[in-house]
């Protein structure tokens, strides 16, 4: 495994990842820069107090004017995972199923590279694609210390790792479904649907009693939905997110080693 397949796929996604990163970076800078204007706005906190369920659906819990509440409600609980998932699920569905549908996978699969290595290089490319958006956002959050957004570096690093792993997990889910079905649309649909359900479960768990026990089945809960911006990423959460990635990558490898390529 020398990385030729991964580099090729990263080259193919270069333009989209640059624009996603620039877009979310600009948004993060805006949110960070606006914080001083809102940090003393009591009406924002009244919003979450008065309509906790609606607020929870947008990922906001607790005070919206605290540094972690502000960043959770505006970045970490929604937009950042959304952008990372758009990138990773999009690539996961395209990497095998999409490339096979457009007949370009055949050329790659006839290189002197083992199927297993092709798949592992694509999984590695997926990890790389999840990084820029999360890291640029983290950089602006760190810059936010100059705008009174004082958060410890450890938890910010932890939640960033959580978001990257969340994206990797759902990207790998799209990859598995794509390899097994050979259908890019199905891969997008299944991974997107499971991600949406996971988000809703994690968001509603704090305010809806019967949803609360289900939060352990939500990858959002392990990455951004359990106070990670303050407490950091727990070892348990890290193990779960990594274990899911290992299982999905293994499934995708086994399926790809058995599947026909056109």
């Amino acid at each position: 495994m020398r990385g030729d397949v991964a580099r090729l796929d990263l080259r193919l996604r270069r333009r989209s990842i640059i624009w996603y990163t620039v877009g979310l970076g600009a948004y993060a800078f805006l949110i960070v820069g606006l914080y001083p204007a809102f940090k003393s706005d009591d009406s924002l906190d009244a919003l979450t107090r008065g309509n906790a369920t609606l607020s929870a659906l947008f990922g906001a819990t607790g005070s919206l004017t605290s540094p972690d509440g502000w960043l959770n409600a505006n970045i970490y609980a929604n937009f950042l995972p959304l952008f990372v998932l758009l990138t990773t699920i999009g690539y996961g569905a395209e990497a095998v199923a999409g490339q096979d549908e457009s007949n370009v996978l055949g050329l790659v699969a006839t290189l002197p590279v083992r199927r297993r290595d092709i798949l592992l290089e694509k999984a590695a490319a997926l990890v790389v694609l999840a990084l820029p958006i999360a890291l640029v956002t983290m950089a602006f959050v760190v810059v936010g210390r100059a705008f009174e957004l004082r958060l410890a570096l450890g938890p910010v690093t932890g939640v960033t790792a959580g978001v990257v792993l969340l994206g990797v997990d759902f990207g790998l889910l799209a990859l598995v479904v794509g390899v097994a079905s050979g259908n890019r649309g199905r891969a997008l649909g299944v991974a997107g649907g499971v991600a949406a359900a996971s988000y809703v479960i994690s968001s509603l768990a704090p305010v809806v009693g019967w949803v609360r026990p289900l939060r352990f089945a939500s990858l959002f809960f392990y990455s951004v939905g359990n106070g990670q911006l303050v407490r950091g990423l727990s070892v348990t959460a890290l193990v779960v997110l990594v274990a899911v990635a290992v299982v999905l990558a293994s499934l995708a490898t086994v399926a790809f080693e058995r599947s026909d390529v056109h």
Partner: protein
Amino acid sequence: MQPAVVLTGLTKQFGGVRGITGVTIEVPAGGVFGFLGPNGAGKSTTIRLIMGLYRPTAGSALVLGADPWDHGAEIRRRIGYLPGELALFPRLTGREIVDRFAAARRLVDLGYRDHLVHRLGAELDRPVKALSKGNRQKIGLVLAFMHRPELLVLDEPTSGLDPLLQDEFAALVEESVAEGRTVFLSSHDLDEVQRLVHSLAIVREGRIVAVDTVEGLRSRAPRRIELRFAGSVEPGAFARLPGVDVVSAAAGRIVLSVRGSVGPVLAAAVPFEPVDVTARPVDLDELFRSFYREEEVGAR
């Protein structure tokens, strides 16, 4: 010398849909083997099995002495492949694609690759999506030939190439064979490949219907002979000859389709006082088409 490709009872089904059934052929090393058949006959399916892209439903394939499904990476190092429906990454330029695939093949000496680019006139500086089919095909040929593989597997290689480039391609194939390499090429047009191939197989509806040399096929092909006589002629005198069919007969003229020796035909003609005889060359294409027509009749 070990054959380059040995397929034994090779079968591929896609659910309930036919792919190929019981394909058995042996491709001698160091020659050009033509794999001929109409569109949808199973040529590309067979080629993808040879390349280890498809897993066989039954039967076996040995390519350069190894199973392409189990040992694909090792043997693909020694194979050059041009897919039938060549698709390249549309946003990349030809140069990016050629460079990346050369790197993936650990190609150190790029001289032959650059020679091929120049010789075929491959356009490398524009994105693939801006290229014509012929220009994309040139890039595909560079990718297939650039590492001087032992075996070239080319699926409809001249598709989209103009006549001058078809000649250049033929020269490239002849040079490869002269260097001891093997070429397996598919086509739906015997005319296009008959000057290149040494032996061939014809596939129809997923099954092999003929395996022969071009000379063997030629010897089996019918000649068309037209005889003119001073007086009337009796068609029955010719119809009863073995290997002879009467195509048409009129007063003083008869047209025959003759397989094998023409001696008995000439002997039968003498009593009717022939005044002229015309024999057309062996119609190889007609024989080839006859395999397809059988398919069409079978399909009705």
